[in-house]
């Protein structure tokens, strides 16, 4: 980073509390208004198109695609994740505003899937990012994705989807893992 | 009359040289010719037939001078004019000399640096 220091503020995020006066209604609203950042990482992003358009119509669940991570609630890891992409994914995730959720599609984020011996596809996503919902399959069909989202809504509604909190609480461990495989960490350290 | 005609011819010849000749020397000569022509013209203007020069060298001229001599003034003028003409020619020739020493030519076409 060096000279770029002045362009990025570099301080550790504060711990966030969960709850408050309107906790119930907040959770209810969050569950019914999931904005998904349009970021396709692997082959699964092709499955998201039918999910969100007329055939399966995810919008009836209150979901919609947004173009910028700042406004999004949900990050979908749609398939295998290379080292190079992982770096971007971490950045996107950190630019999203809490509360935020991660949904991982397919086998690859779980254990590498068919890319178990690839020199550049990671094996386990949850070493690097907190995943709220895993949807298995290679790739999962839109029906499965919708089911996954339904599950996510349930989790949010009942206040159990707290990956964003875990990430902040265990940030040091996540960072360690991330930096282990990303050799040249050309990113601001803590920044959102 | 012959004086008039010849003087005007002289002027015209000089003018011809100045207007047409491409050699600097010829132009200078033309100028001198013009000068001479003009002088001749002036003299002939002052001439009155049957009178003598306005130089009082004989005694009888002392009486009634003005009716016996030609008009003296043109002659005086011509004297001056001749002197001036000589001076001009001298300056002209010296300029021509200098010009020749610079470019080694007397063709007027070579002296057209200054234009437009």
């Amino acid at each position: 980073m060096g000279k770029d220091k002045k362009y990025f503020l570099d301080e550790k995020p504060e711990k966030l509390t969960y709850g408050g006066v309107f906790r119930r209604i907040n959770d209810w609203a969050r569950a019914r208004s999931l904005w998904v950042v349009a970021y396709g990482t692997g082959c699964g992003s092709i499955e998201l198109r039918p999910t969100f358009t007329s055939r399966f119509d995810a919008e009836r669940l209150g979901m919609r695609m947004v173009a910028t991570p700042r406004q999004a609630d949900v990050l979908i890891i749609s398939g295998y994740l290379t080292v190079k992409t992982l770096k971007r994914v971490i950045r996107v995730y950190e630019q999203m505003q809490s509360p935020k959720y991660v949904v991982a599609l397919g086998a690859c984020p779980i254990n590498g899937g068919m890319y178990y011996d690839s020199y550049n596809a990671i094996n386990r996503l949850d070493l690097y990012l907190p995943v709220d919902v895993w949807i298995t399959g290679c790739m999962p069909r839109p029906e499965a994705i919708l089911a996954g989202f339904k599950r996510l809504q349930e989790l949010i509604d009942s206040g159990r989807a707290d990956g964003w909190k875990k990430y902040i609480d265990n940030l040091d461990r996540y960072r360690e893992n991330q930096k282990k495989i990303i050799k040249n960490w050309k990113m601001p350290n803590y920044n959102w | 009359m012959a004086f008039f005609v010849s003087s005007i011819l002289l002027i015209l010849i000089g003018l011809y040289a100045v207007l047409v000749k491409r050699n600097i020397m010829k132009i200078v000569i033309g100028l001198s010719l013009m000068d001479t022509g003009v002088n001749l013209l002036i003299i002939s203007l002052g001439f009155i037939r049957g009178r003598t020069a306005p130089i009082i060298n004989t005694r009888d001229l002392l009486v009634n001078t003005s009716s016996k001599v030609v008009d003296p003034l043109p002659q005086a003028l011509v004297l001056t004019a001749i002197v001036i003409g000589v001076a001009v020619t001298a300056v002209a020739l010296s300029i021509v000399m200098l010009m020749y020493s610079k470019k080694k030519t007397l063709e007027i076409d070579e002296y057209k640096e200054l234009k437009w």
Partner: protein
Amino acid sequence: MEVLNRLREKFEITGDKVQRDDLALVETTGKDLIPVLVYLKTYEGFKTLVMISCVDWMEKGKFQLSYNLWNPEKKKNIIVKIFLDRENPVFQTIYKIWPQAEVYEREIHEMFGVNFEGNPTQDEELILEDWEEIPPMRRDFNTLRYSMEKFGEREPKSGIIIRKQISEQYDEWRRK
């Protein structure tokens, strides 16, 4: 294809083969490759460089570079290939003939470690960021072991044992 005949007259052709009606393979030497390519581009109408590919003939100790050209008027393909020494894989760039070759050469450099002299950008990262091992497409690179070391455990112990065995088998096979 009669192109081959003309090529044979003009250049040192060490082998050729007509694969299909519209595809021929030509093998030449490193010294003659660039003249051949220029000739094909200028006189024979093979104006398009489709791709450059590389093959690792580890057992022969060679890298094979294949230049795939396309004649859009006659709809013919020709592949010109050369062999490089695997220990010291150096060759000249052809990006002055086809600018797009720059990226192919960069990729081959990254994946196989072939050096293209004169290519201005070949040392920049194309796909791999901060790669420290030997180029990953070389066949002596053990990708499974690399994955295990780098990305850590992916499932219970038994799976790891199996993967270790596979990795060792690969090493043995490679040693043969």
